[in-house]
């Protein structure tokens, strides 16, 4: 549905076949593990069997002497790096933390932490060599959740870490709390005292993984001239290049990162794991080296997202939310950097809340260092807030959507950061759900229930650059540097076609390597169609402008007399003089040589995304199993460039949220071992666990983008956890405050099993 009049686009809003589609359905597309190079050898990584231990010694001599083994590396082979902050686009880390995460230095901080790498003539020999590496550990007690880690007597992951407090000072005592952030506004005490209704609850969530199907990989060739080429499946080739430059102390210009097709990321393929190890193995062996993870490595040693503990209290007076006090403590994993701040800033943003106090704790624990995962931090935080909102609506006797509508944020409402919302579409999105067939159809039957929840995500802007090369036959090569995870080659080519007024089929987009296009930040934060789209638009305008000059030259008139309309150049006052885009493209030699448009942006006006979800469930109260009967998602996307892929993002995000709500979790033993590190026991949803996911596209254009684009990909994962919990509460009368709401939890809580 469109809520605002939008221009009559010719390409934007259509559903063409994606440019990379045929290669992907025929098996010809090359992903990171698919490349082969002359002389390529394979490697393997030795990983810590302990969750927390000091490394006393590592002896690699026996491994080095084994047949087929070409090189063995440990942390000692990496240069010493500084504490310089590295902004990877979604999440900031320091160079030294990243280096220690790539290969453990003095301590291993989680089970699966990389300790050494081996390159050998084949992968079986490399794996055998791992067994010959002798590592002596002094095993230390692990801390496995935030509450244990925050205790004063907790074992410390790093004796030298002190808490960065809200004032900016460091705490006196060393701590596992890396940072404590506070947001405060209004008078919370007074508002709670004056309230009609106050609800207060505690919530817990578990660490979960993005679950992309393609394991991490990295292939490196350290050339004899001291340059390094890296092939990898990454969300950001430029982020990989800058991080490699810091970790390996190589000038940026000597590193070329070639982004391969990427088999899913969701935020988890931004950080570096294998690439630096492959690089130093290549340097030592003189051969190109390929490393790939197996699924257990992916679970144990990449970057899932945080579990945590939350405590929330919200007040209502006269039907209006008057105060919120929320404390969030999120697991960062082995090194600081959980998304707790983002979660804190998102969770209340759908609403107007005048009085608030929000505390956010970033806590290190003996688990893998977390990475971004689709709207990082927001789903967990919303699991807390949106259940409290549901409870307040119930206690107020209000319809949960009407309650959200009457408390909705709108243009000018301030978020807890103090920033005012620009034009946003939360109200329109709530209304879209209210008028949906799903909401209008009553839910009936025993043990069935309905739930709703709202969600917010900022969406990111950041830097993008593209080149549009016009060919003499009127086609255009679009060279861009944003990894295409879910169809952005299509959405960018469509925006260029729209800008130039030519057919989509005439644009051929390519994701180039870091030597071949200007800087592009990561594909993350739902930024690519928005920000790279803006760069594409700039490049299109650049082409238009150059064509106008060339037409003026042809017609021997002033450029002011020429206009670019619908893919043609026209003389404003002489209707005889027109030339099409293709015709003029064919006259490049006569009009000044090769024609290339450029677009570079530092996009600063992303449009925030809101989603409202509606779900019906049926609970088998005897077995504890929850079935999703029907699911509808409405989301303000600004403008849907390719509606099919917009719907796909919405559906995919919802289903990840359903998995998170019902079954997914890192299940740890007391020794800090993740016991379910396989797709068998991690239990992501299969096709058989789901109904069709109905989508309602709401379009409230982002005034900060030429076609009104907001980001799409992230916010769909924000509401499902709470929406499903609210539906289960509706079905059973029991409120589940701990994730996952697995059959085990449901039967244990409903039947009071010990």
């Amino acid at each position, binding site marked *: 549905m469109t809520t605002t009049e939008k221009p009559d686009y010719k390409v934007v809003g259509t*559903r063409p*076949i*994606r440019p*990379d*589609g*045929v290669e*992907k*359905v*025929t*098996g*010809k*597309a*090359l*992903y990171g*593990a*698919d490349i*082969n190079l002359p002389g390529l050898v394979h490697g393997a990584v030795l990983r810590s069997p302990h969750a927390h231990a000091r490394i006393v010694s590592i002896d690699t001599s026996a491994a080095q002497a084994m047949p*087929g083994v070409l090189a063995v590396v440990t942390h000692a082979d990496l240069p010493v790096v500084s504490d310089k902050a590295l902004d990877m686009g979604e999440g900031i880390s320091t160079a030294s933390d990243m280096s220690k995460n790539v290969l453990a230095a003095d301590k291993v901080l989680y089970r699966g932490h990389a300790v050494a790498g081996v390159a050998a003539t084949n992968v*079986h*020999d490399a794996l055998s060599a791992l067994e010959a590496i002798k590592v002596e550990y002094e095993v230390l007690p692990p801390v496995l959740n935030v509450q244990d880690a925050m205790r004063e007597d907790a074992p410390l992951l790093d004796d030298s870490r002190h808490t960065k407090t809200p004032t900016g000072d460091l705490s006196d005592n060393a701590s596992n709390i890396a940072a404590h952030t506070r947001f405060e506004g209004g008078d919370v005490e007074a508002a709670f005292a004056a309230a009609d209704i106050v609800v207060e609850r505690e919530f817990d969530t578990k660490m979960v993984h*993005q*679950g*992309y*199907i*393609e*394991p991490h990989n990295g292939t490196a060739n350290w050339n004899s001239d001291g340059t390094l080429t890296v092939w990898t499946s990454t969300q950001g080739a430029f982020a990989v290049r800058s991080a490699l430059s810091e970790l390996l102390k190589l000038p940026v210009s000597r590193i070329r990162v070639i982004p391969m*097709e*990427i*088999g*899913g*990321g*969701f935020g988890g393929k931004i950080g570096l794991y294998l690439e630096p190890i492959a690089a130093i193995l290549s340097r030592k062996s003189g051969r190109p080296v390929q490393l*790939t993870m*197996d*699924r257990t490595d992916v679970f144990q040693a990449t970057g899932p997202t945080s579990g945590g503990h939350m405590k929330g209290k919200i007040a209502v007076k006269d039907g209006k939310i008057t105060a919120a006090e929320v404390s969030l403590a999120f697991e960062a994993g082995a090194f600081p950097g959980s998304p707790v701040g983002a979660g804190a800033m998102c969770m209340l943003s759908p609403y107007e809340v005048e009085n608030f106090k929000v505390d956010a704790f970033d806590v290190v624990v003996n688990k893998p260092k977390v990475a971004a995962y689709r709207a990082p931090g927001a789903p967990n935080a919303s699991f807390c807030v949106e259940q409290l909102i549901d409870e307040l609506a119930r206690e107020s006797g209000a319809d949960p959507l009407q309650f959200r509508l009457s408390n909705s944020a709108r243009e000018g409402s301030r978020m807890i950061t103090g920033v005012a919302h620009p034009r946003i579409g939360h109200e329109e999105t709530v209304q879209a759900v209210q008028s949906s067939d799903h909401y209008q159809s009553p839910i009936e039957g025993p043990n069935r229930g309905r739930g709703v929840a709202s969600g917010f995500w900022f969406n990111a802007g950041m830097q993008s650059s593209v080149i549009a090369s016009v060919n003499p036959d009127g086609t255009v090569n679009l060279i861009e540097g944003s990894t295409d*995870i*879910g*169809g952005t080659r299509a959405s960018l080519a469509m925006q260029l076609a729209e800008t130039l007024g030519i057919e989509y089929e005439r644009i051929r987009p390519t994701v180039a390597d870091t030597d071949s296009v200007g800087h592009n930040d990561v594909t993350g934060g739902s930024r690519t169609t928005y920000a790279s789209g803006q760069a594409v638009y700039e490049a299109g305008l650049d082409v238009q402008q150059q064509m106008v000059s060339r037409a003026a030259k042809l017609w021997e008139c002033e450029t002011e007399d020429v206009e670019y309309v619908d893919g043609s150049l026209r003389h404003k006052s002489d209707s005889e003089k027109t030339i099409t885009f293709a015709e003029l493209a064919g006259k490049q030699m006569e009009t000044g040589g090769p024609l290339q448009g450029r677009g570079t942006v530092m996009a600063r006006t992303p449009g925030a995304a809101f989603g409202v979800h509606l779900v019906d469930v049926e609970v088998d109260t005897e077995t504890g199993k929850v079935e999703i009967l029907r699911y509808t998602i409405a989301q303000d996307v600004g403008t849907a460039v390719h509606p*099919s*892929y917009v*719907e*796909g*993002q919405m*559906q*995919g*995000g*919802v*289903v*990840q949220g359903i998995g998170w709500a019902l079954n997914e979790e890192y299940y740890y033993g007391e020794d800090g071992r993740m016991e379910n590190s*396989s*797709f*068998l026991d991690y239990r*992501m*949803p*299969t*096709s*058989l666990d*789901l109904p*069709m*996911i109905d989508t309602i596209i709401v379009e409230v254009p982002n005034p900060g983008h030429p076609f009104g684009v907001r980001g799409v990909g992230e916010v769909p994962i924000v509401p499902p956890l709470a929406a499903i919990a609210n539906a289960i509460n509706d079905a059973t009368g029991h409120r589940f405050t701990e994730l996952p709401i697995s059959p085990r939890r449901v039967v244990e809580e409903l039947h009071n099993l010990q």
Partner: protein
Amino acid sequence: MPTRRTHIQTNLNGEEVDFLCEPRQSLLEVLREELGLTGTKEGCNNGNCGACSVIMNGRVVNSCCVLGVEAEGAEVTTIEGVAEGEALHPLQQCFLEEAALQCGVCTPGFIIASKALLDSEPSPDEGRIRHWLAGNLCRCTGYDKIVRAVLKASDMEEVSA
């Protein structure tokens, strides 16, 4: 160390092919490393995701759970053998038209598994498709568009049949 390699002959995508492999190598490893057919993907290497699906002697299997040596005398179809020349299989066409792929890494496995379904049951309903594809994990799409693509392809096949 010289490893013992066995000579295997198999019918791969309609052609007689022979290769050498060690008994410990999976069919997946042989396809990707020895035969250069990288369209078959590794997602988990323990039979839980379906990304490495191939059709072997008429049945869809996880090639990570088959040894290369077991392919002796077998008929194997991989994603590279689904299209006929430039003509895409209806499933491939429908996956494109229905936007049934995002990252695309699970796509070869889904197309192979779906082909095995339509080869034996030309008009499955939604429930049957969801049941059949439960061994193939996709993390991007939420399966909605995949199921629609298979339904559409089954309609096309009926028309052409």
